[in-house]
């Protein structure tokens, strides 16, 4: 796979804030990244790090109020080849992009489908809307799409209601719906988190296959590093509303340049590798101490500083900039250069 395609979407300094009673939540605080055509970009980070808000900002689906895109631009080149700043589009123009140029699938397949309409209706709705087809043609497209995502007996299933389907099946319906208008970009917000591993494998497999066939770009949001390793070309790691590291997937896993990424990689159990053998002392996972910071009360400096075992005084003072660590790899840590060596110490 080559990643030499042109940039499809570029997010520059995006800031999305929520005003709540307790204060302003800076859910996304100056996020910058880009996706090239045909590429899969994974966004990882733990709960509350701003992954969903970033993706919803791209779709302009932030509930307003309380949310607001405060700053930044989201440059997108649509099917028509014209680059626009999504942040500045009118609502009507934006509606043309949604579902047509950019589609989205969500984490919860159980609640993301309208329970009172058939899945066929729901898929056809987008087709009617964006492709000017009539109801009957659209239902035909819906059936085709269901077949395409591997649902058996699509002619029958198209007239069924979401509650008549299992979670995996619903997620396929969501994918079918998202792909029905051949979008240039698919945003998948934790599409498999709620699913079982065997079903997750099916869905991931399906997504890979579809991407190969259609050639769209995918913005893949997850906190499962296993899934990232499997799906992504490039990775963006978020923490506390900011991008803390970005780079090629192999690079990130091999040589993380941010302590959070390192901690994350160390804290996950790796299937098979560390399986316990009876009688032997058990191994321990390398946990990141402490808790995720309160978004209302982020530290003044590096947001990871309170949990970071490499923190120094300077970390507390200002938000570190993104350092280019070479090869398109960036990291938001002032001590990134030391890590090559540090890491060796740790593993030893």
């Amino acid at each position, binding site marked *: 796979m080559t990643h030499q395609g042109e940039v499809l979407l570029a997010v520059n300094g995006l800031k999305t804030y929520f005003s709540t*009673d307790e204060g302003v939540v800076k859910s996304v605080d100056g996020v910058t990244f880009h996706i090239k055509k045909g590429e899969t970009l994974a966004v990882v980070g733990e*709960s*509350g790090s701003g992954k969903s808000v970033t993706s919803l900002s791209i779709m302009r689906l932030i509930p307003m109020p309380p949310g607001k895109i405060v700053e930044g631009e989201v440059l997108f080149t649509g099917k028509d080849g014209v680059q626009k700043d999504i942040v500045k589009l009118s609502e009507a123009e934006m509606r043309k992009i949604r579902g047509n140029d950019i589609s989205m699938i969500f984490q919860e397949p159980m609640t993301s489908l309208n329970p009172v309409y058939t899945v066929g209706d729901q898929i056809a709705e987008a087709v009617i809307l964006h492709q000017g087809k009539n109801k009957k043609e659209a239902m035909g497209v819906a059936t085709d799409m269901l077949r395409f995502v591997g649902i058996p007996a699509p002619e029958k299933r198209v007239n069924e209601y979401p509650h008549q389907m299992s979670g995996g099946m619903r997620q396929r319906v969501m994918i079918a719906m998202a792909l029905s208008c051949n979008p240039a970009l698919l945003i998948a917000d934790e599409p498999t988190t709620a699913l079982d591993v065997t079903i997750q494998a099916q869905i991931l497999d399906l997504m890979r296959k579809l991407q190969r066939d259609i050639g769209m770009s995918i913005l893949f949001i997850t906190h499962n590093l296993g899934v990232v390793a499997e799906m992504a070309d490039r990775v963006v790691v978020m923490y506390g509303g900011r991008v803390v590291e970005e780079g090629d997937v192999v690079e990130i896993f091999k040589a993380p340049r941010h302590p959070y990424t390192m901690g994350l990689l160390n804290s996950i159990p790796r299937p098979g590798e560390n399986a316990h053998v009876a009688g032997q002392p058990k191994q321990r996972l390398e946990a990141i101490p*402490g*808790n995720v910071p*309160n*978004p209302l*009360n982020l530290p003044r400096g590096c947001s990871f500083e309170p949990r970071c075992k490499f923190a120094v005084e300077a970390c507390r003072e200002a938000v570190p900039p993104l350092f280019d660590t070479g090869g398109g790899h960036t990291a938001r840590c002032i001590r990134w250069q030391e890590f090559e060596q540090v890491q060796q110490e740790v593993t030893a």
Partner: protein
Amino acid sequence: MTTTAPTTARKSRSQSQWSIVWSQFKRNPLARAGLILLGLLYLMALLAGFLAPYGLTEYSTSDRISWAPPTPIHWRDAQGNFGPYVYGIKRDIDMETFRDKYVEDTSVTCPVKFFQTHPGMENRTYRFLGFIPTSLKLFSVDAPCKLYLWGSDSYGRDQFSRVMYGSQISLSIGIIASVLTVILGLIMGGIAGYFRGVADTVIMRLVEVLSAIPELFLLITLRALFPINSDPILVFYLVIGILSLIGWGGLARIVRGQILSVRELDYVQAATALGASDSRIIGKHLLPSTATYIIIYLSLAIPGFILGESGLSFIGIGIVEPFASWGSLLGVAQAGGFESIDARPWTLIPGVFIVLAVLGWQFVGDGLRDAFDPRRRR
């Protein structure tokens, strides 16, 4: 899910569910207004005897007055002295218009006196805050003058005083009736939800039966069953009892549903796993979890009962003379029909109080509901 660490520095005081609800509630301007309104109304009820210049049933059969208009209060007398005073009134029935005509008798002036006691006037004696007998009044005028702030009724009883005293009944009705309803609803719903099976079936059927029988009809007939020599106030409270006897069904159904679902919750399972007894689970885990709903229910049921009482007075089975409630006072206006509106609009004042009380409770109830509902928190 947010995994937010409590930042010890900011919150030194730990917040219980209740204190959160309270702070949410305080933030809601309507709820605050409702609470203040209710506070004033209930304070009025508490101090009714003190605020009312006259006794509840005070009128004269010799110096007969009916439908007196509000008495004008004058501030500066002929000598230039400043201070509130009223003139005496002269009444005659105008046989042309069939309305009472009142003129001020400027030859008699009486100052409005504050904080006077009225020894020997049994009618005006009341128990301050429910226990200290006194006849101390905030304001009053001496005979032969009359001070009718909001006019009088057909017997010449001071409507202001009657509204004050009426507030005691009107405002307590809602609370008593809804508390009774809640007790019944909790017991029945609790039994149905906790024991399930036959008890559940029987109770739920009963609920259905009760909601199917027309309420008005039940009320009127049940009301006729009381022994006649019983105290009218007692009878009235019995009627309230009937109201709650009819009304517990909806609540019981909900309590049952809540108990059914709460008992499956993990924390209840955890208590079971710890070996907690049934009574502990009911008392510590199940019932408190219905508290939220109960409180909201209470605050929204109370205005319903206040209105219900006025309806009872409309069909004549509410509070009886000489006692007064806002409902029965409004009933007087209703009975007067158009004449009440055309000739003596002050008789409509009790209606304003009903609206105010209902509004107050509505605001508080809505505020509570929002405050309890995490999705609606602001």
